Every structure is written in C-alpha cells, then in structure tokens.
C-alpha cells in the first residue's frame, strides 16, 4: 500500500474524502500532516491531527515515506512544520508557471533558474499580501544570488520577462537548436544586465515618451548605459525612430558631451520581431 493510499484511508477514517472535493488551502503552524493533491491547477492541502502524522512517520518504512525520483511520478518528501508552508507555496508558484520554467530551463544557468523560482515564490507571497515574508525573501534573494538575482525578480515580477521573452522561448520549444537557445540566452542576459534603467516599449508608448524617458535616465538618473527593448515590427520601428530623435536632441542640448554609442541587436524569429538596443555614453559602455 502506497503512502498516498494510506493517507487516503487515514482521512477516510476521519470522515474526509479527499478525492477531488477539497479546494481550500490550509496551513497549520502547530504541526500535523499535510497532503497536497494536484487536480489540473488546483492545489489541495489537507491537514490532519499531529498524532496521525507522528504515527505514520514512526510506523512507515523509509522507502514508503520518501519515494525515490526514479520510482514514481508521485513524489513524497518530508518537510519541517515551519518550512512546509513555504515549500508548498513554492511548489504552487512553480506549478502555475511550469511552462515558463520549463522553457527557461533550456536557456539559462541553473543558478538563474533557482533565482527565478524564488522570484515566483516571492511574487506569490506579494499577491497574498504577506509583506513580512515578501521583504524577508527579497533580502534573502539579494544576499544569496546578488544583484543579478534581484534583477531577475524585477524582470519577472514586472511581467516583462513573460511579455518580451516568451515568444522567443516558444521557438526554443519548437526548434531547440543551439542558435535559438543562444539567441534567447543573449536577450535574457542583456535584459538582466541593464534591468535597473531599462525602457520597455509597448504599443501604447508614444515616440515622445520614449525620448523623454531616455533623457530622464541620462540626465536625472545620470546612468551611463540604458537598454531599450520591445517586440513587434511597429514597435521596433518606433524605437529606432525615437532613439534617433533622442541622439539628435542631445547634440543640440549638450554640445560639450562626447555623444552616445548605440548598439543594436534585432531578432526575427518566425513572425516575431524583437529589438534590444543599448545606448551608452561614449567611452562608458561598461556602465561605469
């Protein structure tokens, strides 16, 4: 008898039928046994009395409690009462974003993927309004994965990662050639590298707004490098035109400046056209 069947029986004795009926998430700090079931995208958590948990842990053989990965598609693990809530939320966040994660796993380094998984969990806490956990995890992410981890959070939580990168990732799914993977990786790296002062251009953004935002970043924020990025043919055209206007305006306003270097990388994958463009103060392409 598997642990899952044993649990079902235990809950039946307690008068709870877990077969697709329980929809509510419940966490309990005092202990007990949590059972997570997945039915499409619904995650069900059932908590039973701590004594039932204790007797199960003490009576079952190790291989019945923790199932090795190669043995089953259904995995069973143990988590301490104060970490279980986080673990279940992390799994739920991953479950919601599993397509994105699966695609990103082909493109980015394992460390970046872990940071992205943490970013997804933080976003979940944010949506639940758990401000203390949100702040604690943001600090932890920055401490462990550095500024890059923090930027991965910003890129993901702003929705830009999905909106901008997903069409490129779809091609990685369809044709996972080294060229497609490398292209997606370069776009991701460039976005992360310049995330702090990037300008994302979407359909409602006007020519004037792009020019204003560029001027603000260089004059007020006083940064050395700004990334501008966007997707679709019309937007790519709009970005090129706005950057040309900005450079022209700067020539008129700041005659003593050395000017700007513009580095453009465009991608055309199927019917998806995307552009990343970095504008750097001349001689300061390294951003310092």
């Amino acid at each position, binding site marked *: 008898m598997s642990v899952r069947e044993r649990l079902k029986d235990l809950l039946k004795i307690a008068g709870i039928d877990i077969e697709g009926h329980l929809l509510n998430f419940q966490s309990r700090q005092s202990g007990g046994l949590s059972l997570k079931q997945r039915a499409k995208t619904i995650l069900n958590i059932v908590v039973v009395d701590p004594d039932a*948990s204790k007797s199960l842990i003490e009576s079952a053989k*190790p291989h019945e409690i923790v199932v090795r990965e190669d043995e089953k598609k259904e995995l069973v*693990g*143990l*988590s*301490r009462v104060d970490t279980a809530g986080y*673990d279940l939320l992390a799994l739920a966040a991953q479950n919601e974003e599993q397509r994105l994660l699966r695609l990103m796993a082909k493109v980015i380094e394992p460390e970046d993927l872990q940071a992205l998984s943490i970013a997804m969990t933080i976003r979940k806490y944010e949506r639940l309004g758990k401000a203390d956990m949100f702040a604690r995890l943001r600090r932890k992410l920055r401490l462990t994965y550095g500024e890059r981890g923090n930027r991965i959070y910003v890129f993901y939580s702003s929705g830009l990662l999905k909106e901008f990168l997903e069409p490129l990732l779809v091609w990685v799914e369809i044709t996972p050639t080294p060229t497609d993977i490398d292209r997606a990786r370069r776009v991701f790296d460039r976005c992360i590298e310049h995330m702090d002062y990037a300008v994302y251009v979407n359909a409602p953004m006007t020519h004037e707004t792009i020019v204003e935002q560029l001027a603000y970043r260089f004059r007020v924020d006083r940064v050395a490098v700004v990334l501008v990025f966007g997707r679709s043919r019309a937007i790519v055209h709009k970005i090129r035109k706005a950057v040309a206007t900005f450079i022209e305006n700067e020539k008129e306003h700041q005659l003593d400046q050395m000017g700007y270097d513009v580095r453009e990388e465009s991608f055309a994958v199927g019917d998806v056209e995307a552009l990343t463009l970095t504008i750097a103060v001349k001689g300061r392409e390294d951003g310092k």
Partner: protein
Amino acid sequence: MPEVTLLVFRSNQASNIVAKFGYAVRGGRIIDSHGKRARCANCQRELTVDHLGRVMPGSYELLCDDLICFNAYAVRLVE
C-alpha cells in the same frame, strides 16, 4: 511537474527521521553512513538535527531549514 506530497514533521521528530534513513546523530550533528557530517544538498551547510528542514526524494536528500534551499530542489522537478 510530478505530484509532490509533503509529510510535515516537528523539530523534535528530526532525530527519529534521520535515524530511519541510516544516519547517526552525535551531539546534535547528523552523521552519514561513512562517518562524515551530513550537509545540506543545496547550500552545503553542515547539518544538525536543529537545522534539518527537509528530506526530499532523490537519494534521500537532506536539506537545511533555509527557506530558499527548497527552490534549488524544486526547479529540478521541472520537466
């Protein structure tokens, strides 16, 4: 992603749990079958029963109680 069931344990059950998986406990430290101190499979911190956070599927991987160590395990479930 495969289905994952988590059994929840209390910190005072940690010693019993690791013993079931063939580890010894000396002075609160978790010792593996080769006599070496067990480490968190993610952050490599030496484990004590007080800091045992999870036992995960895989080669009975032990993880510490640092919350984000779980994500390193969880991303490996992505197929």
